């Protein structure tokens, strides 16, 4: 449909040499989309997006961001290149104030730009504005997740990559976080998301991939994917996986 922002081709990655966790996965994310990566435990979902973000060594394949090869870019250069990553846990600096958490992320912005960008985040997340002086470690789980997302968004990335944003949150906060992501997308941000909470993620997503054993096996429109019998099979692993079940990525 529209232009591809993130294009991951045939990616193989893992912590130990010779022991790939991601085995030839290919996914694309188009501008303005929310793409969800689902999959059973241990499928390599987190490793896939960590590899994309430069946090897991890549042994094969390419990652293109806006057509530019970022496969070998070190993790700390990713925000500058336009890819912002929100880890699943420990995603704020607990002893620094909310404001300093945001300031520290402004490192790649021009000095004059930083205050306006911080105000922009406060406007988007009024909860954070109210607590700007308190230490991030004292925030509630949901607020902490907001701060982590705000920290990533403040540099206006081309794509926002999130690792299980609902993990460890109470159901009330899960809803808050997904509403927040939907709102962020409305403001024009492209999002790639890994999630265990498939139902909630598919509700806000445009497209989804199902990742099994390090490779994407199915791709579909998010709203219909939940009812797709193939997905249930892949997810629950009731039948041995067949090659033909794999979606044409």
């Amino acid at each position: 449909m529209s232009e591809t922002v993130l294009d991951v081709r045939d990616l193989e990655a893992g912590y130990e040499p010779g022991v790939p966790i991601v085995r030839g996965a290919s996914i694309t994310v188009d501008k303005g989309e929310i793409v969800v990566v689902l999959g059973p435990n241990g499928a390599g979902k987190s490793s896939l997006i960590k590899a994309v973000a430069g946090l897991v060594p890549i042994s094969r394949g390419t990652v293109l961001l806006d057509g530019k090869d970022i496969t070998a870019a070190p993790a700390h250069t990713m925000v500058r290149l336009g890819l912002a990553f929100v880890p699943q846990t420990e995603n704020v600096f607990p002893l620094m104030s909310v404001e300093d958490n945001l300031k520290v992320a402004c490192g790649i912005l021009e000095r004059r730009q930083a205050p306006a960008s911080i105000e922009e985040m406060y406007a988007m997340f009024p909860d954070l504005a109210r607590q700007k002086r308190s230490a991030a470690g004292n925030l509630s789980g949901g607020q902490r997740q907001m701060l982590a997302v705000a920290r990533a968004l403040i540099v206006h990335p081309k794509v926002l990559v999130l690792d299980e944003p609902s993990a460890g949150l109470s159901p009330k906060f899960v809803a808050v976080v997904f509403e927040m992501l939907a709102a962020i997308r409305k403001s024009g941000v492209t999002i790639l998301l890994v999630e265990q909470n498939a139902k909630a993620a598919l509700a806000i997503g445009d497209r989804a991939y199902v990742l099994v054993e390090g490779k994407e096996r199915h791709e579909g429109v998010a709203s219909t994917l939940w009812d797709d019998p193939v997905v249930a099979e892949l997810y629950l692993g009731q039948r041995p996986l067949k090659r033909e079940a794999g979606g044409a990525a």
Partner: protein
Amino acid sequence: MSLQFIVDGLLAGSMIGLGAIGVTLTYSILRFSNFAHGDFMAWGAYATLVCVGAIGALFGKVAPIAPLSFGWPLILGLIVGMAFTALLALLLDKLLFSRLRRQEQAIIVVMGSFGASMALRSLLEFVFTSRPTYFSRAIQIAMPVGLGIRITPDQIALLFLTAALVLGVHLLTTRTQTGRSMQAMSQNPALARIAGIDVAGVVRVTWVIGAALACVAGVMIGVLVQIRPLMGFDMLLPMFAAAILGGIGSIPGAVVGGLIIGLAEAGAVQLIGAEWRAAVSFIILMAVLIVRPIGLFGVRER
């Protein structure tokens, strides 16, 4: 008991505190106890000494800035010495510590620093012999300032210098982007990278600050006491004790810890004699480790 110990303690505490800032930064950002940090002091002092000597050879005798015992050559020498010590630390990091860090075992890095410390110290002994030396042999008259306390102009100047440096480093680490990056690194290095912080840059800044301050502390010891190859190694225990007492990672903590230890040492020297000075740091260290291992201003480790 004479109140003179307050001045003596504040001076000793300044030297310990300046050193402890480097120890605490290395520990919180590079995550290891650097046993070679004391030797940065000694190397800084000798570098400054050589520079002062070179200036003397080039320009002849320079009159001291009254009422101090030293003139501009020492000030210039100190700046050169700080730069030299910073370069030494960066070089050591490049050759040794950065490679050992890649083995992912903090204690191996500690061991490497122990070996480096031994080599650095003995190299000084080789070049300069173990005989003590001095920046100036002029004897300064201590001025009485009341309550039985006497202080020399040099001592006053060095106390002000310490205060200015500590304030400067505090502002740098709390008010600037560099400082925030350092805080971020110490709290969560992985997230710091994700947030776009150049880890290698932060590591360099850490070494430069720690080593430059160590050089100042070494020169202070040189001005007020004497210069010996062992001078830094002897400061190691007080510096570690100060950093832990203040709370690892806390710069104000390191300075306050240094002052407390300096004052306690000076008090002990008056009460039980100079020969037991070194035991004071150990007693304070053990007390902190048993009662409150996170120190005065520390926060619980994650």
